[in-house]
């Protein structure tokens, strides 16, 4: 029996390869690094991510596919790769002092994070359901452990086990969906699925399969009604892991979501666009309303991340070139903004004692004016105020929706943004208007956290004031 050898083109998967190799080097380095030098493993990880980002950039415009059409290096995937690498690098900058303060500074932390990044890159550049699934699992398995990384803290363990059980549960649905789509079309390759569906009409089996695929993606990006794990997991996991999960997983999973639905299943668009529109409305509304009720900043940002998933889903419903590029821009804007917000929350913590209740932020502006300003900028950007990145992102997504005749969806999105202003401004009011709480004296912001915060805030402002270059890059990101 002849077996076809796939065309091995390592250049296409260079970013994922570099990240994987870095993870292995860090894992080996962990063995020979004395306890007080563990932070060098963090720097090494960041160096690997920078090299991977350069590799992704050197592939820009290559539009090459390899491994029998299983992986592709198109601008869409590369843009997401860059976003993911940026989010991982900023998260590691935040993590180095954080895990030291919490006495969990082991090299495995960076190894798991890098392994997850490799999975995300694979998922964002995959053009075959098998590879998408592989990336999804490579992304998820290390995150289950990272969520439970604070082993002494029962809340962290609880977050880990909840994330694991619901994640495994959702991947079973996702797999069943893939199996049914494979049965209906005879292939797992996205391009061949699209070709096969263009010729023949759909079957009930195909519709069920596509529905289950959507459930699997909805779990990963936390769409209502598949979101209930999000607040608990984001609340219990170490704050730096939450920061990383809330942005990078979304970028990777939405990448595969867009690629699968917009590229492979346009033949069924009539059906899934309606479902996605309903999910978007539910997700935005429930995320924002639930965020109103939270007194804990991490839980509030968890619900806010659910709401943002809803906004991005609008871009999928629009199903146009503009929708795609607006989603890419939004994911980048959301990444820097949310990491900035989490970075500020980490900066305001007192060593191992974190300030996570909104009332704990009272008077922060007097003690830490710069951190308070950074948090304010990031929260305003999340709420969608000009001239910050979040405003441009929302503007592009709602614009894409209006263009394609989904104006009512854009109107609901705008109304939701108005609601969100209330809860985003609550910490700001506490910081600027209240008398300082006890225990602010003597807190120093770690230099690395300050650096990450500076990068994030500059990006938020730059993407808001000069969005044109990033929009141009995102607009080049058409799926091939």
């Amino acid at each position, binding site marked *: *029996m*002849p*077996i*076809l050898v796939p065309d091995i083109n390592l250049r296409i998967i260079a970013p994922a390869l570099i990240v994987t190799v870095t993870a292995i080097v860090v894992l080996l380095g962990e063995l020979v690094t004395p306890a007080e030098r563990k932070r060098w493993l963090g720097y090494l990880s960041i160096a690997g991510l920078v090299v991977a980002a350069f590799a992704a950039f050197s592939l820009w415009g290559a539009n090459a596919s390899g491994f029998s059409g299983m992986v592709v290096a198109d601008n869409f995937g590369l843009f997401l790769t860059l976003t993911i690498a940026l989010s991982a690098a900023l998260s590691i900058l935040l993590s180095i002092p954080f895990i030291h303060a919490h006495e969990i500074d082991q090299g495995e932390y960076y190894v798991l994070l890098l392994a997850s990044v490799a999975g995300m890159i694979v998922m964002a550049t995959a053009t075959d359901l*098998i590879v998408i*699934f*592989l990336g999804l*699992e490579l992304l998820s*398995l290390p995150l*289950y*452990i990272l969520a*439970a990384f604070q*082993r002494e803290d*029962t*809340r962290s*363990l*609880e*977050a*880990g*086990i*909840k994330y*694991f*059980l619901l994640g*495994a*549960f959702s*991947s*079973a*649905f996702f*797999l*069943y969906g*893939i*199996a*049914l789509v*494979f*049965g209906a*079309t*005879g*292939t*797992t390759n996205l391009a*061949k699925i699209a*070709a*096969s569906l263009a010729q023949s009409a759909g079957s009930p089996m195909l519709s069920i399969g596509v529905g289950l695929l959507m459930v699997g993606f909805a779990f990963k990006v936390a769409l209502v009604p598949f979101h*209930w794990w999000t*607040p*608990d997991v984001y*609340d*219990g996991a170490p704050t730096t892991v939450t920061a990383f999960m809330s942005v990078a997983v979304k970028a990777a999973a939405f990448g595969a979501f867009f690629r699968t639905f917009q590229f492979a299943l346009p033949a069924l668009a009539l059906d899934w666009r309606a479902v996605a529109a309903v999910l978007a409305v539910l997700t935005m509304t429930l995320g924002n309303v639930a965020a109103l009720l939270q007194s804990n900043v991490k839980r509030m940002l968890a619900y806010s991340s659910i709401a943002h998933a809803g906004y991005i889903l609008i871009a999928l419903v629009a199903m146009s070139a503009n929708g795609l590029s607006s989603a890419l821009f939004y994911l980048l804007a959301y990444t820097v903004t949310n990491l900035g917000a989490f970075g500020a929350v980490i900066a305001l913590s007192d060593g191992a004692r974190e300030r996570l209740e909104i009332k704990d932020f009272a008077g922060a502006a007097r003690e830490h004016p710069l951190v308070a300003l950074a948090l304010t900028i990031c929260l305003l950007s999340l709420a969608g105020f000009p001239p910050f990145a979040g405003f441009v992102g929302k503007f592009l997504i709602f614009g894409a929706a209006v263009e394609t005749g989904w104006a009512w969806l854009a109107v609901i999105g705008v109304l939701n943004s108005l609601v969100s202003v209330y809860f985003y401004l609550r910490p700001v009011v506490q910081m600027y208007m209240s008398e300082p709480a006890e225990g602010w004296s003597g807190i120093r912001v770690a230099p690395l956290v300050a650096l990450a915060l500076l990068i994030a805030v500059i990006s938020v402002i730059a993407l808001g004031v000069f969005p044109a270059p990033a929009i141009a890059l995102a607009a080049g990101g058409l799926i091939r």
Partner: protein
Amino acid sequence: MIPLQFYLIVAAILFCLGLFGALARRNAVAILMGIELMLNAVNINLVAFWRYVKPAAPTMDLAGQIFALFVVTLAAAEAAIGLALIIAIYRSRDTVNVEDVDLMKW
């Protein structure tokens, strides 16, 4: 030859049994077992489809079988991580009942 439908029905029943186990049981290990059943249902589907549905391209397409192997590997990796987490939580809480693991509201 046994028709394809029979395999699909067996797989669907197995999937539903696993789903019921994952939703109805409160023991984390039992939930994990339910999830494994769901994954095995997928494997039956994949191999049956591979055998019965002619691939779109007339090559020796092994996608279904290879995919089933991937799923088996994943199930092993998931079990390893899941059991490690369950042991960790048993050490700190003396329980593997998910209803008792409720420091945060669901």
